[in-house]
């Protein structure tokens, strides 16, 4: 099954990324062992120069990870016709359950790589490279996830047997089934709506408060709230938001909204959600590093920017999701 062009591209791309990440990790180890910012010897200079290489590689890796997540979903969607019972990407992923793990690892790698890039960015703004050890230790921990992602991905494509009867999103995300997806789909709409909007409201309120006050506790709260927003939003998309996009009370699939038939609305939805959550998260993650004198002001200023971005993106996300609920002719009244 690997001989599908999309599958081939993903596998080749992942192998290239693994090569680069392994190389980066080896460099990272060297840097961790020999780094001494007070030393102005040529070895230190050479290490400093290597950090540029690592930054470049990581930036490209992140770009690749993001693209490959979309390509993976698209490929899964493209091959759905091979499986009996599959109507979209969900069916393809069900045909070989490892497919879902590929998706999860890609999401994890996305967040880890993005956090690393921010660490790198902050570190480079200070004159004494205060975050070098943290950064490169983190780099070493991203590589195993990328290897895992490639492994799962290969296993997924290799393990696909076209005769398998699989279930489509209609049955996976149906209200009557077993499993998490079904549970999410069958969450009662009205309470879920309330939870969704209340969570967003609390998140935005906390964000505004963090802008005005310097209290650390608010920043940590923001990180936790971001994660909550992420989980609640995904659950809400499956539970009721998707229904409004599809205008069908039983179509809960979270993947079909990225298709042409629905004007690719999935893209702005997921892009704003992921990036909004990301910026909210890193606000608190960097708070403990303000202890470092050379970073205090830098982080403080960056946090302000991140909070503003997060507010903006989550607001746009909420507006996009609310539009069909408020303005379309479709209504769930009487159905639930």
């Amino acid at each position, binding site marked *: 099954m690997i001989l599908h062009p999309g599958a081939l591209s993903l596998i080749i791309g992942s192998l290239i990324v693994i090569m680069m990440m392994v190389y980066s990790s080896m460099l990272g180890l060297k840097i961790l062992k020999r780094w001494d*910012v007070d030393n102005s010897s040529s070895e230190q200079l050479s290490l400093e120069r290597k950090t540029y290489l690592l930054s470049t590689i990581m930036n490209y890796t992140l770009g690749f990870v993001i693209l490959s997540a979309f390509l993976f979903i698209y490929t899964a969607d493209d091959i759905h016709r091979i499986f009996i019972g599959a109507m979209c990407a969900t069916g393809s992923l069900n045909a070989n359950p490892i497919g879902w793990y590929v998706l999860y690892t890609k999401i994890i790698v996305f967040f880890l790589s993005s956090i690393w890039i921010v660490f790198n960015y902050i570190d480079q703004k200070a*004159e004494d490279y205060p975050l070098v050890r943290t950064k490169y230790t983190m780099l070493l921990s991203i590589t195993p996830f990328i290897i895992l992602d490639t492994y799962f991905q290969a296993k997924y494509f290799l393990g696909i047997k076209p005769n398998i009867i699989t279930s489509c999103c209609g049955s996976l995300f149906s209200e009557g089934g077993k499993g998490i997806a079904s549970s999410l789909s069958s969450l009662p709409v009205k309470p879920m709506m309330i939870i969704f909007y209340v969570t967003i409201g609390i998140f935005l309120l906390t964000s505004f408060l963090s802008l005005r006050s310097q209290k650390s506790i608010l920043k940590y709260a923001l990180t936790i709230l971001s994660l909550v927003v992420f989980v609640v939003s995904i659950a809400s998309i499956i539970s009721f938001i998707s229904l409004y996009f599809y205008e069908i009370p039983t179509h809960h699939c979270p993947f079909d909204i990225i298709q042409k038939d629905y004007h690719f609305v999935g893209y702005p939805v997921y892009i704003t959600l992921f990036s909004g959550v990301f910026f909210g998260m890193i606000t608190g993650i960097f708070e403990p590093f303000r202890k470092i004198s050379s970073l205090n002001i830098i982080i403080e200023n960056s946090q302000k920017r991140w909070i503003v971005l997060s507010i903006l993106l989550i607001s746009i996300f909420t507006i996009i999701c609310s539009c069909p609920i408020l303005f379309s002719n479709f209504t769930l009244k009487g159905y639930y």
Partner: protein
Amino acid sequence: MDIVIKTEGATKVFNPNMPNEVKAITDVSIEIKKGELVVLKGPSGSGKTSLLSLIGCMSRPTEGKVIINGKDVAKLPERFLTEIRQKTFGFVFQMFNLIKGISVIENVMLPLYPTDTKLTAIKKQAEFVMEKLNILKKKNFNVQNLSAGEQQRVAIARALINEPEIILADEPTAHLDTKLSEDLIKILQRLNEDGKTIIMATHDPFVYERPFINRIIEMRDGMVKKAMVR
């Protein structure tokens, strides 16, 4: 007068602990005040270029301190060095070092490309500087089509575009005839009168036997021999 440049025990060793190890300068301590015109005098191999390179934040000393406007730059990461260099120094090289294939005005504007200044503002500044050096007429010529003297003036214009307070010149008259050398020295003198600090490395007596030079620092074998004040 303020001290703009100070070195304390600056040492530069190339390829340390290797068979081709070279000690370019050893334990150099000098001070240069704002508005001075200083000459680093010495034969080739005496370390003047290396010292200029250290002062100009082009490389880091193996030992010792290099203090620019009160800040020790010896251990700064490269990008901070570049920032200081961009703001403080203008460099005139021995070999002009203009980029062939692009026009005069583009060469002059290049140092300000990686900054957030708008292109139009940079262009205006470039034209202003070129006007002062009398090469504005040739702004759209390719640099290969200019004479040595004109190329030298383009190089100086490029060194001035970021309005530096300190100008470093490395053997500026090495490839010029007497008349052009005379023109060059006049330009540097004028810049010094305008308040710029100028440090020149040279072994050309045509340059260092001039009355308006404040100080000569003599170097030999990587060390300072004499600092003569006029």
